């Protein structure tokens, strides 16, 4: 009882922080335009179109989102990436888009944001491990990017790849106790073109921190978190199904689709419920993480038990 009371007090103070966030945003926009005028990035704020349809989701705190990270390129310890990310350089970055597209391009993040204006998306995020959070992402729809490069009749799957650089990602130099690098993820083209699928560049109105996948990462809110690949350097379109790191590591445990599904358990633990970060009680996990209306039609003829 005592412990719960303590916990509640923390909770309320952090909720205050979140409510201020919305007032602060106008200030940040001002700051962002000031930075644009000065031409020097003093302040990592972004300009973006604000989310209109907040589904009444309670945001996870900025501190929790930025200090509890599964980012095996840094470490398997969730608290370590925030500490180890200090030498990471997300500024000089290019994203290459190629493969089965009409025109191959290589862009930096600023060019991309000039091409496609950023918008805010408040999404649930459900990790395959059983914890969850709600994140106010800032990003651009992947569909807009793919339309920009132009699809062909052979654009059937999209492969994403994380930066490989053991100097910046210490665990990429390790040979034991981690996954294979570079990290790869993939989507079917209809999943990639779904309006929910986002390439995020920020959260809470600020540029992404390295531990959250700076400077650009995928967000696929109806799939388990490991599909939402971080620090992307290349997007390649293919005619056949693409690779997926966790799926290759343990195909019986992590599917290529990895749709959030409370009725299909992980072989070691149940997926029926989840632990929202910062809370003492579990809550029910929703089919497609609550995005069935937007995505269920893509899996009408798919046996979700077989293709988990």
């Amino acid at each position: 009882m005592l412990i719960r009371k303590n916990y509640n007090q923390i909770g309320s103070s952090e909720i205050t922080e979140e409510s201020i966030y919305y007032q602060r945003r106008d200030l940040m926009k001002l700051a962002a335009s000031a930075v644009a005028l000065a031409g020097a990035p003093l302040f990592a704020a972004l300009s973006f179109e604000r989310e209109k349809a907040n589904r009444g989701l309670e945001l996870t705190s900025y501190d929790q989102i930025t200090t509890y990270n599964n980012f095996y390129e840094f470490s398997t310890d969730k608290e370590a990436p925030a500490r180890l990310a200090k030498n990471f350089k997300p500024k000089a970055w290019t994203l290459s888009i190629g493969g089965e597209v009409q025109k191959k391009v290589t862009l930096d993040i600023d060019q991309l944001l000039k091409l496609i204006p950023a918008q805010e998306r408040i999404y649930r995020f459900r990790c395959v491990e059983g914890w969850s959070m709600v994140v106010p992402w800032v990003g651009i729809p992947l569909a807009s990017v793919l339309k920009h490069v132009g699809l062909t009749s052979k654009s059937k799957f999209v492969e994403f790849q994380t930066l490989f650089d053991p100097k910046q990602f210490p665990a990429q130099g390790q040979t034991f106790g981690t996954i294979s690098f570079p990290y790869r993820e993939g989507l079917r083209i209809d999943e990639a073109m779904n309006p929910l699928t986002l390439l995020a560049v920020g959260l809470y109105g600020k540029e992404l921190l390295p531990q959250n996948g700076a400077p650009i990462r995928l967000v696929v809110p109806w799939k388990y978190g490991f599909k939402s690949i971080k620090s992307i350097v290349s997007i390649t379109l293919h005619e056949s199904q693409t690779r997926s790191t966790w799926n290759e590591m343990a195909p019986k445990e992590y599917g290529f689709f990895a749709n959030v599904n409370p009725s299909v358990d992980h072989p070691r633990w149940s997926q029926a419920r989840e632990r929202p970060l910062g809370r003492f009680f579990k809550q029910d996990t929703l089919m497609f993480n609550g995005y069935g209306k937007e995505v269920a039609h893509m899996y009408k003829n798919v046996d979700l038990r077989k293709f988990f």
Partner: protein
Amino acid sequence: MRILIWLGALSPLVYAALRFSVEFHPQVLHDILVSIESYIHVTLTKIPTDPLKFLSDLVGNSALWLLAITLLLTPLRSYIGINFLKYRRLLGLFAFFYALLHALMFIGIDQQFDLIGVNHEVVSKPFIAFGMGAFLILLIMALTSTKKLFAKFRSWHKMVYIAVVLIAIHYLMSHKTITLTHVTVVGTLFLLLALRLVKR
């Protein structure tokens, strides 16, 4: 010595209380904790982000390490000649106490005391079955640990070897990847078993 064992064995609970009461720490305590944090990479001044996972891991690991210490007492006597065997029961019961908390978290919080659900998980998931098997062995040992019953059920306590093997597998399976730390922990458990087998 007995007091030291109590303090040591209860320290995980003290640590948990410290982590969950961060908001109420007096300034002096906060300053001390911050300076400890700067020397070793350990979080002391923050409420755990994933509280249920934090508690489940904490009590599970505490059970594992207390059991390892319990197993260390016999080789300690036979190889080095230090006799702490009179504390074995107390340490073993502490190991069981943490295993009980760990199991109760699974039965109570994960499964909401739905015993059919618990049974389903045990039957369908080897990971859960290994953990539950080890817990049942420790339960039998705890229940037969009084002087009178121990005399009668002494041979049953050899089941602890099975429990250690089950715990080692359960521990390895609880992570998404197997790291050097995990291998070291399991290696330590098997070393303790080997020391006893060699002696025989």
